[in-house]
C-alpha cells in the first residue's frame, strides 16, 4: 500500500529529523506525550503513545503521528472526520460514516471517557492527554478503561515513547465497563494490528516550538483608526442633516 509506505517513510524521515534536532538541541526539546486508544468492534484494543515537541496537537495529528492506518475526510470549514481506522471498516463507506457503526471519539477526563465535543481536527491535546476511539453504533459506548500511565509509562521527563498493544478477548467486548472509574484493564496479550509496527513512528515529533511573537500593533491601529473615522463621518452627517 503506497499510503502506508509513504506514511512510514515520512514518519521515519520526521523521526530522523527530530532525532537530529534532539541531538543538536538536547535542552530545547520539552517532549510531551499523548496517548491514543483505539477499540475495534471485535473488542481488541490498540494503545499508542505519541511524543511531540509542540505545546499542543490536534486529535487528527495524534492519529497521524501514531502510525495507525487511517482515512479522514474533510468537511470544509467544519473540519475532518475519521472514516477508517486501522483498516476498520475494510472499505471507506460513501459519505464517510455509512449507516451502521462509526468511529466515536472520546477524551480521557479524570478516571473516565467523555464524548468529545469537537471533531478530531479541532480537539486539542496537551502533555498527558489521552484520546479514545471506538467503532460502535449507539451513544456512549466508550472504549475500555486504560490508564495513561499504562500506555505512556509513568510521567517522567526521561521517558522515551513506548508502544503498547492491549488486547481484550473478543467475547468480552460487550462486558466492557463504560466510562467508569474502574481500575485499568491489565495489559496482557499482543493484538494483531493491521497497521505497521512502527517503532520509528513513535518518536516522531513536530517542528520545534518557535518563541512567542510580540503582539502586533498594526491590526489594532487599523481597527481603531477606522472606528474613529467612521464616528467622525457619522458626526458630520448628523450635524448636516439634524438629529
Amino acid at each position, binding site marked *: 500500500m503506497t499510503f502506508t509506505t509513504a506514511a512510514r517513510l515520512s514518519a521515519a524521515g520526521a523521526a530522523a529529523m527530530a532525532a537530529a534536532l534532539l541531538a543538536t538541541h538536547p535542552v530545547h526539546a520539552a517532549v510531551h506525550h499523548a496517548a491514543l486508544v483505539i477499540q475495534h468492534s471485535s473488542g481488541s484494543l490498540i494503545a499508542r503513545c505519541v511524543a511531540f515537541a509542540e505545546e499542543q496537537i490536534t486529535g487528527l495529528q495524534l492519529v497521524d503521528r501514531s502510525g495507525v492506518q487511517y482515512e479522514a475526510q474533510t468537511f470544509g*470549514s467544519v473540519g475532518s472526520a475519521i472514516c477508517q481506522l486501522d483498516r476498520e471498516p475494510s472499505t471507506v463507506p460513501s459519505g464517510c460514516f455509512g449507516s451502521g457503526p462509526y468511529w466515536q471519539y472520546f477524551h480521557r477526563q479524570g478516571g473516565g471517557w467523555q464524548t468529545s*465535543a*469537537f471533531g478530531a481536527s*479541532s480537539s*486539542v491535546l496537551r502533555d498527558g492527554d489521552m484520546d479514545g476511539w471506538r467503532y460502535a453504533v449507539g451513544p456512549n459506548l466508550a472504549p475500555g478503561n486504560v490508564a495513561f500511565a499504562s500506555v505512556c509509562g509513568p510521567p517522567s521527563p526521561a521517558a522515551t515513547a513506548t508502544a503498547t498493544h492491549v488486547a481484550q478477548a473478543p467475547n468480552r467486548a460487550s462486558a466492557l465497563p463504560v466510562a467508569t472509574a474502574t481500575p485499568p484493564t491489565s495489559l496482557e496479550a499482543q493484538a494483531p494490528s493491521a497497521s505497521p509496527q512502527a517503532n520509528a513512528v513513535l518518536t516522531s515529533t513536530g517542528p520545534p516550538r518557535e518563541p512567542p511573537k510580540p503582539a502586533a500593533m*498594526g*491590526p*489594532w491601529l*487599523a*481597527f481603531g483608526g*477606522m*472606528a474613529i*473615522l*467612521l*464616528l467622525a*463621518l*457619522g458626526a*458630520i*452627517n*448628523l450635524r*448636516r*442633516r439634524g438629529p
Partner: protein
Amino acid sequence: MIRHPLAWGAWTAAALAAAFIDRNPYLQALLLLVVINVFVPYRGGRRAGTWKFALALALVPILFSAALSRFGEHVLFTLPAIPIIGGRWTLDAVAFGASTGLALLLTVAVFGILQTTVRSADVVAILPRPLYRAGTTVALALAFAPKTLAAFQSIREARQLRGQRTGWRSTPALLLPLLLTTLERALQYGESLDARGFGSGRRSRYRPLRWTVPDLIVVIASLTAIVAIAVLPAVPYNPYLELTPSVPYPDRLLAVALLAVPAFVASLSRVDHAPHHA
C-alpha cells in the same frame, strides 16, 4: 446622494456577505458602525421602526445558547439538575449566542436600510420591458397592505375621537368603513393607471433614472468589498475554542470599511431640504 436601486442592491449584497461570513466580533462591530453611519444620512425623517425586532433577534440567541449549551470552560454558575436548563452555564455559550445574535441584528439592519432607501417606483422604472406590467402590479399590491393598515388606524382614531369604544367588539363597525375605503382606493388606482395610459402601447418615462458618479462609486466599492470578503481568508471566531477573539488583518477591516462609501458620498453632497424623497 445615492438613489439608483442597483447601487443599493450591490451595497446590500456586500453588507450581507460581510454579515454572514465574518463572525469576528471586531469585524461585526465595525460593520454595525458602518450600517448606523449609512442609516443616518438616508433615514429621511423616518425613525427606525424595526430596531425593537432586531434587538429581540439579537438577544434571543444569547439566552438560548446560554441556557441550552453545556460546553465551554469558563463557567459562570451551575444550576441544579433541572431538566433542560440544569447544569453549567458558561461564558463561552453566551459569547457564541452574542456572535450569532449580532449577525442576525446586522442582517435585519441591512434590509432595513434597503427598505428605507429604495423607492418601489424606482425599482419599477428600471425593470426590463417584459417584466414591466407584472412589476407594476406587484408594486401596487405591495403598497396596498401598508395603506390599508394606515386606513384602519385612521378609522380607529376617528372612532376614539367620537368617544366610541375601541375593543375587539367594535371590529364589525370598523370593517365596513375599511372595506369602503379600500374599494375607493382600488378604483382610484384603476383610474390613475388609465389616465397614464397603462398597458396601451409603448411605455413612457417621466424623469428617467440615470446613473450618477456617486452611484457608480458605490457599485465599484461594493463589488470590491464582496470580492475581498469572499477571497481573503476569513477570521473565524469560535468562543468554545478561544474566548478572546483575534484582531483581523487590516485588509479585511478595509473591506468592511469600504461599505461606508454611501455615508461618505452623502457627507459630500449638497444639503437638500426639498422633500422629493417623500
